[in-house]
């Protein structure tokens, strides 16, 4: 029971606690309600204050921004004053950057101010543009001065001879010039001024080229005019070096133009840069061509030289013209006029040889090789130095068209030139030249009074031709030509030898055979015949010897041959006669008649023509 009681008592205690807790809860609820009321009231009083604070903050920000904007504009307005000094002073070459920054600022200001369309900024924009223009002029000056510093004229010949490229502008300065150029080209109509820096470029570089090439241009003329030889020697004219130099310089020049000039200005800039040097070059070529025209026979080889050089470089010139975007008619005209002059030289040369016949050309008194023979063969030799060019030109001229007169049957050939190759046409030309020379020599030889001298003259000349044919023109000429001149040499040697026959005939006696035996003892009649023969031989020999000794045979081999041919007849015939009669008593005083022992006679003949041994 206790237990029940205990539990009843606990229950009562718990009920009591519950009543207390409920009372407390009620009290707290009423307090919370009071709090809520108070909060609602507080909110209603704070909210408007918060709203007005926000508005005020925004207002303050706007005011700040406007102020900054105005300050910036004012800054642009002040820019002219701030930068004027710097810009007008011009750039410091070592600190281009800050100068370009100043210009950048001005440009930016113009851009900005133009965008605002503020009435008050118009004046400032105008000032800024003036300033920019001044800046550009300063930059142009700088461009000119930098370019000029790098455009000192050179001697291109020293590079040509060492086969080196013409130097350009070093990398650093080239880069600076390129920077300036791109800066200058970026100014456009916004400042109402277009920079003339391309013109500056053309002017400076053109002067550089012209000055550098001046020596070669003058040299081309002077080497042609003041040479040591009467006839132009292959490769001695400066024109070919001039050509090489101008092409090499133009090549380097294009590389420079490409680096410095803005891309749209490269072609016209390059074209105008090379124009004056090119004009000078063509003018030099024309001067030389005119000189050649006036001195055709001595100077035509200069034309060949020039043509070979121009033809060789035709591709390089075309490349230059392509890069420059131009068609150069002057250059082509030069080539054409040179070719025309060279073509004329072929018939003129033959005419010269033919007409020499008519002139009172000096004929050598000793029958030596004629000047005309020597110069003609020299001319032919020189032509072989330009064989390819000569063949091309002769084909252009047409086979046989170098003969002005149609009279000579030898000279008529198929003139259409069809089916004729270069080596055939040159063969024909050489043959015709030699034929004309032969004709002139033959006709000139007629003015000699003595047959022996005529023969010696023609022998000397034909022998000289033959030797040249063999040694120099073997590859050019038809082999028949050699045989032809061999025959001529034999013919005139025979002709010369014949002139000794009257002298020899004195040594040719007759043996009378009567009754089956030759008469041994000489009768008085026979004796006087023998005396007469000795006397006549001596006289004839001495006269012939005296006259012929003054004749010239300059070629040692020919001289030896001619003397040998005299001796091969004279010596046996003389010996025979001497042996046959010196035993017989044809005279009481034989030494009166036998003037020469065979050795003396032979020694004398050996000394014939020795006036021509130099």
């Amino acid at each position: 029971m206790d237990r029940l009681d205990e539990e009843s008592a606990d229950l009562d205690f718990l009920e009591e606690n519950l009543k207390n807790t409920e009372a407390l809860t009620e009290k707290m609820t009423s307090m919370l309600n009071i709090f809520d009321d108070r909060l609602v009231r507080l909110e209603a009083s704070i909210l408007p204050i918060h709203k007005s604070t926000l508005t005020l903050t925004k207002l303050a920000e706007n005011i700040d921004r406007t102020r900054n904007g105005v300050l910036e504009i004012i800054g642009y307005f002040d820019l002219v004053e701030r930068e004027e000094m710097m810009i007008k002073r011009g750039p410091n070459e070592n600190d281009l950057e800050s100068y370009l920054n100043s210009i950048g600022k001005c440009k930016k200001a113009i851009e900005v101010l133009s965008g605002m369309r503020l009435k008050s900024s118009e004046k400032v924009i105008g000032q800024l543009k003036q300033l920019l223009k001044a800046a550009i002029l300063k930059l142009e000056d700088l461009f000119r001065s930098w370019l000029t510093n790098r455009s000192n004229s050179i001697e291109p010949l020293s590079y040509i001879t060492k086969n080196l490229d013409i130097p350009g502008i070093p990398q650093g300065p080239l880069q600076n010039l390129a920077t300036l150029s791109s800066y200058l080209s970026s100014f456009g109509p916004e400042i109402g001024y277009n920079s003339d820096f391309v013109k500056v470029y053309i002017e400076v570089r053109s002067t550089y080229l012209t000055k550098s090439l001046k020596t070669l241009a003058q040299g081309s003329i002077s080497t042609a005019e003041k040479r040591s030889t009467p006839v132009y020697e292959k490769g001695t004219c400066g024109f070919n070096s001039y050509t090489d130099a101008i092409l090499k310089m133009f090549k380097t020049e294009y590389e420079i133009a490409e680096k410095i000039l803005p891309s749209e200005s490269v072609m016209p800039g390059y074209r105008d840069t090379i124009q004056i040097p090119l004009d000078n070059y063509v003018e030099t070529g024309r001067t030389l061509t005119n000189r050649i025209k006036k001195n055709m026979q001595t100077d035509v080889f200069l034309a060949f030289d020039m043509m070979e050089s121009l033809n060789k470089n035709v591709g390089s010139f075309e490349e230059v013209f392509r890069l420059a975007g131009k068609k150069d008619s002057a250059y082509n005209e030069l080539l054409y006029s040179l070719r025309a002059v060279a073509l004329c030289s072929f018939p003129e040369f033959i005419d010269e040889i033919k007409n020499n016949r008519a002139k009172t050309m000096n004929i050598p008194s000793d029958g030596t090789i004629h000047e005309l023979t020597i110069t003609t063969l020299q001319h032919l030799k020189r032509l072989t130095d330009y064989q390819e060019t000569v063949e091309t030109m002769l084909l252009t001229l047409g086979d046989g068209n170098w003969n002005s007169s149609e009279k000579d049957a030898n000279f008529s050939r198929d003139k259409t030139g069809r089916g004729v190759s270069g080596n055939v046409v040159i063969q024909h030309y050489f043959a015709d030249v030699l034929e004309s020379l032969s004709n002139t020599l033959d006709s000139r030889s007629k003015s000699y009074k003595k047959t022996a001298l005529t023969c010696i003259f023609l022998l000397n000349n034909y022998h000289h031709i033959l030797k040249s044919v063999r040694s120099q023109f073997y590859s050019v000429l038809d082999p028949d030509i050699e045989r032809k001149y061999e025959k001529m040499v034999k013919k005139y040697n025979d002709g010369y030898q014949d002139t000794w026959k009257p002298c020899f005939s004195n040594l040719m006696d007759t043996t009378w055979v009567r009754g089956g035996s030759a008469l041994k003892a000489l009768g008085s009649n026979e004796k006087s015949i023998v005396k007469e023969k000795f006397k006549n031989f001596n006289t004839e020999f001495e006269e012939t010897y005296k006259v012929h000794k003054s004749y010239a045979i300059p070629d040692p081999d020919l001289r030896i041959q001619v003397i040998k041919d005299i001796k091969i007849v004279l010596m046996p015939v003389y010996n025979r006669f001497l042996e046959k009669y010196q035993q017989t008593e044809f005279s009481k005083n034989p030494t009166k008649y036998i003037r020469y022992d065979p050795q003396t006679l032979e020694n004398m003949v050996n000394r014939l023509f020795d006036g021509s041994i130099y």
Partner: protein
Amino acid sequence: MPCNPLFGKNKPLHRKLVVLGDGACGKTSLLNVFTRGYFPQIYEPTVFENYVHDIWIDNQQIELSLWDTAGQEEFDRLRSLSYADTHVVMLCFAVDNRDSLENIESKWIAEISEHCQGVKIVLVALKCDLREDINVVRNMQRYGERPVSYEEGLAVAQNINASRYLECSAKHNRGVREAFEQSARVSIHARPKGAPHDSNNVRCIIL
């Protein structure tokens, strides 16, 4: 001096006969045997000789100028002195030397046409006795050769258009007189050929 009505009805004719042929083929021996009946035993090359010898042909006296020449090639120029005004050429070869026959056509005809174009030619075979000389025949056989026969000589004579073909042996004096007589006959009606010595004319060459 009484005149023989059979002889001397005409003035003597002057005729020039030139003996040509290779060196050592026997020209000088032939002339010596003819003019002097003498056959030389020693060979000595001739420079030149000119014998004048009278001969009678059909009652006509002919003063025959006989020109002996140098056969050697190196004396071509010397020989050219002999060609002027020639009526007849006795062109000789030796039967024991085939080269001397070959040279008739290859060398001598060319030389004659150069110096003496159109002259009458009598072809003469020399040393004909050697055809029967056993040593010569044997010697030639060693080289596969034999002496030149009459027919071979005749054929060459026809080729070169010779007026006569004659064979002799000077050593045995066979056919010598006949050879000269025939040549003299040929010469009677011949016109002289060959430029005279003293002419200074330079002959033309057809190139």
